[in-house]
């Protein structure tokens, strides 16, 4: 109970004054988990190791649901004066967090060196770079990868070592793989539909937003074609179920053999590996005009209402959690990417990827990756796009109308930022 907690704090504060040698910096960190597996234990483990190495810092890591929940929780805490010094939040929340004046750029934090900021994969820092400064440090980062059931590939007379590389192959192989009770392909359309859609749009050669977060291109013909293609997978080609496909239950569906291929976050890799009763493969997404996937996932942010002492401690924690050794450990436990090239040079990750090459797919895909969809007012602009996608997939609206509406809504929301 917080009352007791607070009393405890007061006592601790009193004790601190009496014995400055024991002074502790207390950090509260909110973090999300958006993929399967008991990842809270992993995070708690890393934090415990950090505390052991830094006895002067006390970290309270609070798991608070998915990305949206975590943003709500962290910002609620700030708004009501509860302590929160840092959080892992959506990499794409950067614009809004800056606009609401809640976070500080890492360049301004004492002790941050350009070398460290440049040590991460550039594709992963792209979302955190706004107005020439770095506001977010990559932590649980992913791209979308294609998981496929090798046994089903074999049964359908396909080569299990050559998954589809183009949209055409995707459709033709999908048709061969579609059987009674088994879909050829499932692309999730709840939870994070805009993310999957962005992947398709990039492959079709068109970005969804401008680099400054002020313009969206939802009604561009190439984007409309993209949505038509997604819809045709079920409506025309019959290789995907009609209606929406659940983000949350998709992994289960894949493991139960309900689909031969699924597109999902690489963050699911370890969970799939643990539970699959068949041979499965992981591949980069296929392309049309080009190959591509958006990055995804969460970055570390430091909040503005933080003392210098707390900033230094927070920086220490972030540095620890993203250093090559920890990044390697984290990547092995989850399937998320090692956030820096150095992570893939560690003994641990080298040995692991040698044994299990799929763990490299997401990283290899980084060369084709682009920043995840993000604008000002990002939650609502995204919601508009999500709705357009779902409306088209469920036959409520035509892709043209749905995207035109989303574009109109985005224009209205972004009017104030032009």
């Amino acid at each position, binding site marked *: 109970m917080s009352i007791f907690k607070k009393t405890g704090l007061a006592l601790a504060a009193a004790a601190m004054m009496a014995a400055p040698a024991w002074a502790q910096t207390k950090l509260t960190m909110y973090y999300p988990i958006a993929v399967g597996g008991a990842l809270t234990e992993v995070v708690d483990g890393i934090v415990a190791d950090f505390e052991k190495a830094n006895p002067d810092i006390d970290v309270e890591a609070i798991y608070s649901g998915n990305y*949206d929940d975590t943003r709500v929780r962290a910002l609620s805490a700030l708004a009501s004066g509860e302590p929160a010094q840092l959080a892992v939040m959506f990499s794409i929340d950067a614009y809004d967090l800056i*606009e609401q004046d809640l976070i500080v750029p890492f360049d301004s934090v004492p002790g941050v060196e350009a070398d460290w900021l440049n040590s991460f994969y550039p594709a992963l820092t792209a979302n955190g770079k706004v107005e020439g400064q770095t506001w977010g440090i990559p932590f649980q980062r992913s791209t979308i990868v294609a998981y496929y059931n090798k046994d089903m590939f074999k049964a359908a007379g396909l080569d299990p070592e050559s998954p589809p590389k183009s949209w055409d192959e995707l459709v033709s192989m999908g048709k061969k793989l579609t059987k009674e009770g088994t879909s050829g392909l499932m692309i999730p359309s709840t939870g994070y539909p805009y993310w999957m859609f962005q992947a398709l749009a990039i492959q079709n050669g068109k970005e969804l937003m401008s680099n400054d977060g002020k313009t969206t291109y939802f009604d561009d013909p190439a984007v409309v074609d993209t949505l038509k293609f997604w819809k045709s997978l079920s409506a025309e080609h019959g290789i995907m179920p009609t*209606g929406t496909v659940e983000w949350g239950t998709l992994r289960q569906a894949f493991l139960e053999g309900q689909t031969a291929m699924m597109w999902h976050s690489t963050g699911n890799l370890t969970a799939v590996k643990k539970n699959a009763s068949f041979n499965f493969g992981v591949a980069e997404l296929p392309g049309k005009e080009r190959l591509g996937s958006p990055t995804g996932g969460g970055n570390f942010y430091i909040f503005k209402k933080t003392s210098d002492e707390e900033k230094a401690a927070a920086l220490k924690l972030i540095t620890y959690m993203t250093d090559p050794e920890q990044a390697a450990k984290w990547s092995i436990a989850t399937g998320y990417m090692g956030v820096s090239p150095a992570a893939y040079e560690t003994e641990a990750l080298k040995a692991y990827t040698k044994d299990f090459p799929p763990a490299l797919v997401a990283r290899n895909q980084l060369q084709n990756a682009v920043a995840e969809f993000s604008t000002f007012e990002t939650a609502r602009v995204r919601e508009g796009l999500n*709705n*357009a996608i779902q409306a088209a997939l469920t036959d*409520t609206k035509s892709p043209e109308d749905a995207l035109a509406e989303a574009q109109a809504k985005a224009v209205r929301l972004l009017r*104030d930022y032009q």
Partner: protein
Amino acid sequence: MAKHIDAEKRRQAIYGWLLLSPAAVLLTTFAFYPTMATLWSSLFSRGTRRRPTEWVGGENYADLFADPTFWLVVKNNLLYAGITIPVSIFIALSMALWANSKLPAKGFLRTAYFTPTVLPMIAAANLWLFFYTPGLGVLDQIGGLFGLPTVNWLGQPETALWAIIIVTIWKEAGFFMIFYLAALQTIPADLKEAADIEGASRWTYTRRIVLPLLMPTTLFIAVNALINSVKLIDHLFILTKGGPNDASKLILYYIYEMAFAFFDAPHAAAMTMMVLLVLGIVAAFQFTVLDRRTHYQ
């Protein structure tokens, strides 16, 4: 003597207010003041780094009226209320009549009917999620036995809201049954005897005597069901999050989203005011038109 009565009156007045003060303080803090504050903040714009808060009068309301999502949500909520209220009342009445009749295993029936009431809506939503999940879910498995195709109950705009409605009815019917059971026990047994002597059938007895006597209870339940149709949204968090394409979004969920996901408190406040207005009209109706002596004296 008059002085004595005056003193006694004054004493009573002081006692009365003292006794009321905890309730008054709490009600002011958590009901009346927030209502006023909501009204006030609905008249200002949202502040951002670029644009500080300013007085905008009715603009937030105008925005909502121009927002197609708002109208969709209103329509959803009207349908939600329009179905859940009569259906759950009808089912609750049937349950009560059955649980009060001479059927065998009455105790089992009553327990079965009432059990959903004890479960948290969040837990109930988890239970129902596995009924609705396409392919793996119970409904689809049962449908599969009869060769029906897989239906994505929660993933299609045509069925999502209905799936939500069914869970609500399931949850609240048993609760309303209790009120009917209570009312049924107050009906004197000699009415039944008299009806038997007259040779009236059970159906006639139910229709001509029981139902009219239950009328006040029905109205009371109707008001409760109406309130529930505003506040019972917990299952949305698990089942659909208002999707797909806002097809199952209800107004309180939209308020929550507006305030806590989009951080747009002014528009949330404007919507809150409209809900309060509707509830106020219902309250006025309840206190004036309905026979208040039945329940509130």
